[in-house]
């Protein structure tokens, strides 16, 4: 029996505003516990929230990037539930009138481009963080709360259950993450919790109209976890259904250690959040001019860059890699402005430079390499002044020290030997010194030719133009 899968994804993204969403405490991570707090984000008696307009800007920006309609009168609601990391025991969130609604994101899937509808984009406050003395909530004698995170603006992005495979889920998540990063509203680090994800999953027999009973999956904190947790849960539900059982509507927890999902609470135990409009905030009005101001600030997003790079002649795989990497794409575009050979720039960026960056565990912005330096190096290659080999050797120094490649090759006398006479002189010397090998070559041993080229290169410390060496050596050997 064939089954169809429906997955909806809920993403929480911490916004990179300089202050919290309802008070002026700084948004910063890694500070000592409870040092970035005030009466408002500690939920002290008498404290009142004041909305940070910058957080609204970020929410509108994201909603626009995800093709949403913007509600002109969004409403903040209180979501009431008790938990020690929630200082007021209610979260200021949005309910039936969020900032953005009815958007979509097109992703690549097995069957070509697929549209994933986005139900809503809303703004809310983050909670504090619980720390347990033995590391786990159930076996700890003591728990501590750090409220530095309390009140950090969170954006919730909820998709419709349009996702059918784990690959699509991953593609959707990656795309959202990249869009958030390109917008500059979130750093998208799932492993550090600045982007979090929950999913609802249901399975139905092919051809059945109604969606199957869904389960909600929590605690999926990495891209890897998303894939594995979804695979497990889809498999579990299919097994239940094909053995004649019924899927129970419940919230399930991804148990990373044991590689499985476990039931957290059933439908009966579901919270009644008793939403009602937050009376401490005044109605928010997002007028046309506010929306248009932000629309004009929308940067070029990965999808647009991808199309642009393909038009520049890059292969689609390379174009996609570059387009989704905010740093490399920026670097690429800057370099191409100075050195107009997109293919060559892309090859170097995605090849040797990426490898060097990986070795250093650094982003390109954390190195001394600049578009100017890269363009200079590529020009030297193109003008035949240095070989690719030499350029590769120079790369680590360019990355670590940011020295001008022109100066470097002058100082070290590394420029390519391109004058025929000098090369010929060395070739003749190599032939004299390797009569045996020359003999072998003449008897038909092709490999000997490569050895002789190598000897020439060795003697010139790699500075001889390889093409020239090939040409002249063949001629000399007759």
């Amino acid at each position, binding site marked *: 029996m064939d089954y169809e899968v429906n997955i909806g994804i809920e993403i929480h993204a911490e916004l990179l505003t300089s202050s919290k969403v309802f008070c002026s405490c700084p948004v910063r991570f890694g500070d000592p516990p409870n040092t970035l707090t005030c009466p408002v984000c500690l939920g*002290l008696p008498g*404290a009142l929230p004041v909305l940070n307009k910058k957080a609204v800007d970020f929410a509108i920006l994201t909603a626009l990037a995800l093709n949403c309609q913007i509600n002109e009168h969004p409403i903040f609601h209180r979501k009431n539930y008790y938990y*020690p990391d929630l200082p007021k*025991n*209610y979260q200021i969130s949005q309910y039936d009138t969020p900032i953005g609604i009815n958007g979509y994101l097109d992703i690549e899937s097995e069957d070509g481009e697929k549209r994933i509808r986005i139900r809503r984009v809303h703004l809310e406050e983050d909670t504090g963080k619980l720390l347990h003395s033995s590391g786990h909530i159930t076996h700890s004698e003591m728990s501590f*709360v750090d409220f530095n995170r309390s009140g950090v603006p969170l954006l919730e992005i909820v998709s419709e259950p349009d996702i059918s495979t784990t690959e699509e889920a991953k593609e959707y998540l990656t795309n959202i993450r990249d869009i958030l990063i390109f917008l500059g509203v979130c750093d998208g680090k799932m492993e550090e919790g600045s982007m979090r994800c929950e999913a609802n999953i249901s399975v139905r027999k092919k051809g059945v109209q109604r969606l199957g009973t869904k389960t909600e999956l929590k605690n999926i904190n990495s891209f890897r976890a998303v894939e594995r947790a979804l695979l497990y849960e889809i498999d579990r539900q299919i097994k239940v259904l094909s053995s004649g059982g019924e899927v129970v509507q419940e919230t399930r927890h991804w148990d990373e250690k044991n590689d499985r999902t476990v039931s957290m609470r059933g439908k009966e135990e579901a919270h009644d959040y008793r939403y009602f409009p937050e009376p401490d905030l*005044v109605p928010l009005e997002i007028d046309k001019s506010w929306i248009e101001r932000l629309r004009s600030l929308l940067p070029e997003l990965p999808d647009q860059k991808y199309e642009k790079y393909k038009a520049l002649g890059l292969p689609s795989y390379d174009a996609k890699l570059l387009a989704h990497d905010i740093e490399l794409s920026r670097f690429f575009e800057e370099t191409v402005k100075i050195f107009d050979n997109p293919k060559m720039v892309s090859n170097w960026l995605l090849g040797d430079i990426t490898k060097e960056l990986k070795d250093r565990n650094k982003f390109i912005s954390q190195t001394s390499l600049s578009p100017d330096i890269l363009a200079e190096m590529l020009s030297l290659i193109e003008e035949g002044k240095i070989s690719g080999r030499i350029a590769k050797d120079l790369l680590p120094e360019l990355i670590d020290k940011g020295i001008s490649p022109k100066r470097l090759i002058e100082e070290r006398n590394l420029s390519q030997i391109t004058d025929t006479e000098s090369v010929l002189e060395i070739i003749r010397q190599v032939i004299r010194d390797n009569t045996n090998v020359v003999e072998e070559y003449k008897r038909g041993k092709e490999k000997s030719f490569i050895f002789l080229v190598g000897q020439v290169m060795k003697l010139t410390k790699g500075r001889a133009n390889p093409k020239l060496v090939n040409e002249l050596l063949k001629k000399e050997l007759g």
Partner: protein
Amino acid sequence: MDLADLTAHSLIELIKKRDVSHLEVVNSFLERIERCESRIKAYLSLRDREDIISSIREDNPYSALLIAIKDNILVKGLRATCASKILSNFIAPYNATVIEKLNQRGFNIAGKTNLDEFAMGSSTENSSFGPTKNPWDLERVPGGSSGGSAASVAMGESVWALGSDTGGSIRQPASFCGVVGLKPTYGTVSRYGLVAFASSLDQIGPITKDVTDNALLYSIISGYDPHDSTSLKLEPYRFTELQQDIRGVKIGVIRELMGEGVDNAVKNCINEAINTFESLGAIVDEVSLPHIDYSVPTYYILAPAEASSNLARFDGVRYGFRAFGQTAEEMMSNTRGEGFGPEVKRRIMLGTYVLSAGYYEAFYLKALKFRNLIASDFNSAFKEFDVLISPTSPVLPFKLGEKTENPLEMYLSDICTIPINLAGIPAISIPCGFVNNLPVGLQIIGPTFSESMLFRVAYGFEQATPFHKNRPNVGGR
């Protein structure tokens, strides 16, 4: 006359003329506290005598005029218990905006006054630390929830006081204690640092011995505050217009608040007041506000709904009283079970219920609609009238324990004051008569931002009547 019986404006005059010293004034109030407080129990905590005296600034008369602050308003370094066991050990770590404003003017705080727990009640009997007594009759309640503030002003244990008013909590105790209390327009006084009961209804306001003092204190505490999103970007009230006569002012008497359920003695006082207004040249007529009868049920849905959420933060996790529990959940549950009194629990349960899935539309949303209807009743009335009047309380100050067994009856005693909070408009209660030596209050209601008009009408009445000069018997030498 004892200095402790004088109004703020007359004391300021005496100080400015150097007829009395700052210290003499302060001492007369401290003596009054010493003499009467053990019987009245207006205060939950008093500042040390030395602290009060060292707060005197010779160039600033306000520093001699002791002010009492309701214990749900945060004063940095002082306890803020809200008369609840759950906050019995809570020291305020920051100042409410109104306190900042008082501090800027050099005010001298006497102490924190008693209230119904979290301002929920009409008699100050719901205090976890015992009731306050009415200075006019120690067997009767001072009203509530700002009963401590009203009693302290009436008794001369402070010159003036701040209270908070969610459904009548300033006006009703002012009425019961024979003093003047203003519930300002919603949004004109910052709520930052007021422990929230029902956020959309709460408003801080002044309680004073006469209208002039009230206008003076209101001019000091009102004004925009960036820390309170619901605070309005308006110029603070300026102390003007008081002396203008009220000839030609159109006054509407709310028919629904003069009918059944209103004591005849109270009605008589209001009718006398109407005569006084007419003799001053005002035009008085009757007006009907058809939806006003729904005020009490509307209020007892909306206020508890907001309260159930506002009071959720008192869980023992971060501050206040903490009970023991094996788990975090059990600890929170036990803390709330032991920390809150019965009336607070009743309202939290009511509020939780009306917000629950399946009941929200039937209760909460319907109540919001009625709130709008009530507000529009007032709006139409103000097309015809400059101000409206009614009794502040339908009954005279009642005896301690008289209504504690019957919460519904207690709720109904707020029938005249609740509609004003629902409409977000201002109203002032002033003394308008005495029955068996018990004060009766007149409520004057105006449209939004009409505080100047309210003070003018109230002042006109006050000048024509002797009631504001009455002081309760100090007794017990």
